[in-house]
């Protein structure tokens, strides 16, 4: 196979206020025609920078390719004058981005943006032909009524739809290379599965190569032929997908693979986590850049950087690859995977718990009215949560899953009474929160705390860590300054932070560390109930495991009850005793965690589980992808809200909304015709 893209010893520097920063060092890899190569790594590894360098987009961000060459079809992009770049961008290589919502210009129609792209590269095409081609492309990427869609503005389409349109636009000039930068990260699992499948089909049809940038090895396993792993600006390993998963040659890759929470992770064991976090580009460690986090570290690793060495058709940059291979073991995660399929269904621990309810929702509904202004034509309400009843028992972890737009976060906020329900009531230890006076409610908040998704936004950037963690203590008027400081220091050590953090500001910490800060603050008042709203979704895989472990430790030590909201089904399965599945404001299934995954009854739950990419290449089954997208909560379908996407929908589903009913011990489902 001829090489389409050859990246040869490329280093990239960025000019910053504090001098030049080398962000990528000596990266080499190539992509053959028709091949899918995945560039994997955590945030800060430099993978996105490399992908942008291929299009020379870094020029606009004060970046420059300081050495090496990037050859696309033999043309060295690194040496190309700026004017000639336009002939490459879009025409030979095209890019799709992580946030489809922001990648389109909101003030032009989709059609105008696509036809413009087509005509920019070939002036001979008439506007009419360009329009025809745009219609064809949209149809090809699976958008229904393409003529209509072309007339719409980006804001009128959903995320999944926009990502399809983005792909259509990228492919409209028949590029030879498609660069996809985290194309599915911002999307729901069900949509992610659809997009990945689409990319796979299009690759064959258009005979192009794909450079996929992702942090999710599950996604990589699904569509990549080869995987290049980056760490702190360097390539540390590259191998074919099967080889990489079967036998990683670098401790970092091994660690990454092990820290993925899979459908088979043993709930009784702690998750594997790589200690520490990725170093900043400004102060990289000497020698091997991974050595401070590496279990195989030796004296040599500290002083000398290992070169990228050939290991029979694959490469790894480690002094100890031979030791890794000699041990000859498959990483433990995979052993567990092999073992789990044969173990009998464990007795449900939660079934034996006393029915001691800590927090209860009674027929809670939350509507957001819109269109109340004089000028709006449409009036109505977004039905975010519709008639949900739920009881969470003391000491359990209840998981809540669903696509975005399912109302799970709203439910969480209503539960804490950060928002008042439109109807229905929330009972905490038997007291109705809605009936309490504001002062009483504030008092009650001591017992219920929350951890947010975004570890950057949820702490005040102007406060020191000590004050942030101590704020709940001051608010509830406990103790003097000295006692408070002692308490805060204790909390910091509880979540694994150094006491030195006390006088520092949030920006000095990484995402994982900030999430620890948020957790320390949340448990400061020894609450009974903790709401973790997507608390680990924004974190890197290796850090995610650290935080999940911390949460389970704390739950045991402090006897917490946790509501864990997440879209990462694997993680939710790992942490939760019971799981609830939400769809379009309705709770459609509740079951003990293990049981839900082994015997999902609702067709939506089945689809959700099927959509999870498995990080084991051999086990890639053709997924039972559900079609379409979640409808607007302002106009939910009649009867069963899932019927528009349900493979088993009947006439009855359109007429009669199904009620939750018990089909097994602790297993409730709202479906007229449950599966299995």
């Amino acid at each position, binding site marked *: 196979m001829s090489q389409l893209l050859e990246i040869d010893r490329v280093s990239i520097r960025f000019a910053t206020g504090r001098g030049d920063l080398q962000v990528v060092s000596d990266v080499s890899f190539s992509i053959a025609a028709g091949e899918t190569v995945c560039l994997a790594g955590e945030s*800060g590894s430099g993978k996105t920078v490399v992908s942008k360098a291929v299009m020379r987009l870094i020029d606009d961000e004060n970046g420059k390719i300081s050495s090496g060459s990037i050859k696309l079809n033999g043309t060295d992009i690194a040496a190309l004058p700026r004017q000639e770049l336009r002939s490459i961008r879009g025409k030979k290589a095209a890019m799709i981005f992580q946030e489809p919502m922001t990648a389109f210009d909101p003030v032009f129609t989709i059609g105008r943006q696509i036809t413009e792209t087509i005509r920019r590269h070939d002036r001979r095409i008439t506007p009419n032909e360009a329009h025809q081609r745009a219609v064809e492309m949209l149809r090809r990427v699976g958008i229904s009524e393409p003529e209509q869609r072309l007339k719409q503005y980006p804001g009128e389409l959903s995320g999944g739809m926009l990502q399809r349109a983005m792909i259509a636009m990228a492919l409209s000039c028949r590029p030879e290379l498609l660069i996809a930068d985290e194309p599915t990260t911002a999307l729901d699992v069900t949509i992610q599965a659809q997009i990945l499948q689409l990319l796979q089909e299009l690759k064959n049809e258009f005979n192009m190569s794909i450079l996929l940038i992702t942090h999710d090895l599950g996604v990589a396993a699904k569509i990549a032929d080869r995987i290049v792993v980056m760490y702190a600006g360097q390539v540390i390993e590259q191998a074919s997908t099967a080889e990489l998963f079967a036998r990683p040659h670098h401790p970092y890759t091994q660690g990454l693979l092990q820290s993925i929470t899979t459908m088979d992770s043993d709930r009784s064991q702690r998750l594997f986590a790589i200690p520490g976090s990725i170093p900043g580009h400004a102060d990289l460690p000497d020698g091997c850049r991974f050595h401070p986090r590496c279990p195989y570290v030796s004296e040599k690793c500290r002083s000398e950087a290992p070169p990228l060495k050939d290991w029979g058709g694959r490469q790894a940059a480690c002094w100890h690859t031979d030791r890794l291979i000699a041990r000859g073991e498959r990483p433990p995660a995979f052993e567990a995977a092999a073992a789990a399929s044969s173990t009998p269904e464990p007795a449900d621990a939660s079934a034996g718990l006393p029915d001691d309810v800590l927090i209860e929702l009674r027929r809670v509904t939350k509507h957001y009215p819109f269109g109340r202004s004089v000028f709006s034509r449409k009036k109505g309400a977004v039905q975010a949560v519709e008639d949900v009843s739920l009881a969470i028992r003391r000491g359990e972890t209840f998981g809540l899953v669903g696509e975005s737009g399912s109302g799970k976060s709203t439910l969480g906020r209503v539960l804490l009474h950060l928002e008042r329900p439109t109807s229905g009531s929330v009972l905490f230890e038997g007291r109705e929160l809605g009936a309490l006076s504001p002062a009483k409610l*504030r008092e009650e*908040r001591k017992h219920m705390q929350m951890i947010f998704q975004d570890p950057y936004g949820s702490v*005040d950037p102007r406060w020191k860590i000590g004050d942030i963690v101590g704020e709940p203590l001051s*608010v509830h008027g406990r103790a003097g300054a000295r006692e408070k400081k002692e308490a805060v220091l204790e909390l910091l050590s509880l979540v694994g932070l150094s006491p030195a953090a006390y006088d520092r500001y949030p920006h000095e*910490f*990484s995402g994982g560390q900030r999430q620890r800060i948020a957790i320390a*603050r949340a448990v400061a008042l020894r609450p009974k109930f903790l709401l973790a709203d997507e608390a680990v979704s924004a974190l890197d895989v290796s850090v995610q495991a650290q935080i999940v472990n911390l949460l389970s430790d704390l739950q045991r030590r402090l006897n917490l009850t946790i509501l864990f909201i997440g879209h990462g089904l694997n993680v939710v399965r790992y942490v939760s005793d019971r799981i609830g599945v939400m769809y379009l404001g309705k709770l459609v299934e509740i079951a003990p965690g293990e049981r839900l995954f082994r015997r999902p009854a609702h067709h939506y739950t089945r689809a959700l589980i099927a959509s999870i990419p498995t990080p084991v290449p051999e086990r890639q089954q053709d997924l039972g992808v559900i079609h379409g997208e979640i409808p607007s909560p302002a106009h939910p379908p009649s009867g069963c809200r899932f019927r528009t996407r349900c493979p088993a929908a009947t006439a009855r589903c359109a007429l009669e909304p199904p009620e939750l009913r018990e089909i097994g011990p602790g297993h409730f489902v709202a479906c007229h015709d449950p599966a299995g």
Partner: protein
Amino acid sequence: MREAASVKTAWRTKRTPTTLQRTVPKIVVARWMSLTAGAVVLFLIACALVPQWIAPYSPTDMQADRILLPPGSAYWLGTDYFGRDVFSLIVYGARESLFIGFASVLVGGVSGALLGALSGYLGGWVDSVLMRIVDVIMTIPGVLLALAVAAGLGPGLWNIVLAVAIASLPNYARIMRGQILSVKSRPFITASRSIGASELSVFVKHVLPNSLSPLLVMACIGVGTSILTGSGLSFLGLGVLKEIPDWGALLSQGRGYLTVAWWICTFPGMAITLFVLSVNVIGDELRDALDPRKRRE
């Protein structure tokens, strides 16, 4: 972010410097621009406080034998048509100009910020009513508004300050309201509420400090524009008629002589420009110094 990741290793290797230790070297090695700006502002403030120590001549001293002398060794910035020393006039004029500049920003900025903050934080009808009032004020050009207010109140230093303050108030209110609205919706505000903090403490401890920095920058620019507006008013005869003119009055008096004696209005103009520039530089420094994310070497 990038530096953040290394914190863990830093703990092990070196002692954490305190905030003071990190700030002091910064002051010492501060860029020359901030130093110059600081020097200019200090000098002008000194002029305002003790002009008699700085000015070589009395500003009221008119001498027929030195009319319209160009800048030279005896009269550094030349003399005007009355035979007064331009440099001494500028030094003595600083008091009035600086007072109008600072006082009107203080009055306009504080009251504007308060209105904007109330409006943004409370929302609802309070917001609607306050913002419509601000909108109405905004439709009238600033100078015209100041003129009307000054004319209504009659001449006088405080009335000028008030006129300029009212004219600048809507801008502060708008900016503050926008800031409050955006800060209000950030997760750490919800986070604070979720631990049971009262509305007042959320507002004072979180919303306000995070909303102030653009206002600070605007206030610095505002000092300059206020001096100019104040000057405009005194040019139109609504200022205080005194024997010592402020910078704006100097500027307008010298205008007629621009072709024969450029120095009469050029130097007061430069004084205004220099002062405004310096205050802006200091404003930027101040904003950075107040932001913990930038408070590092």
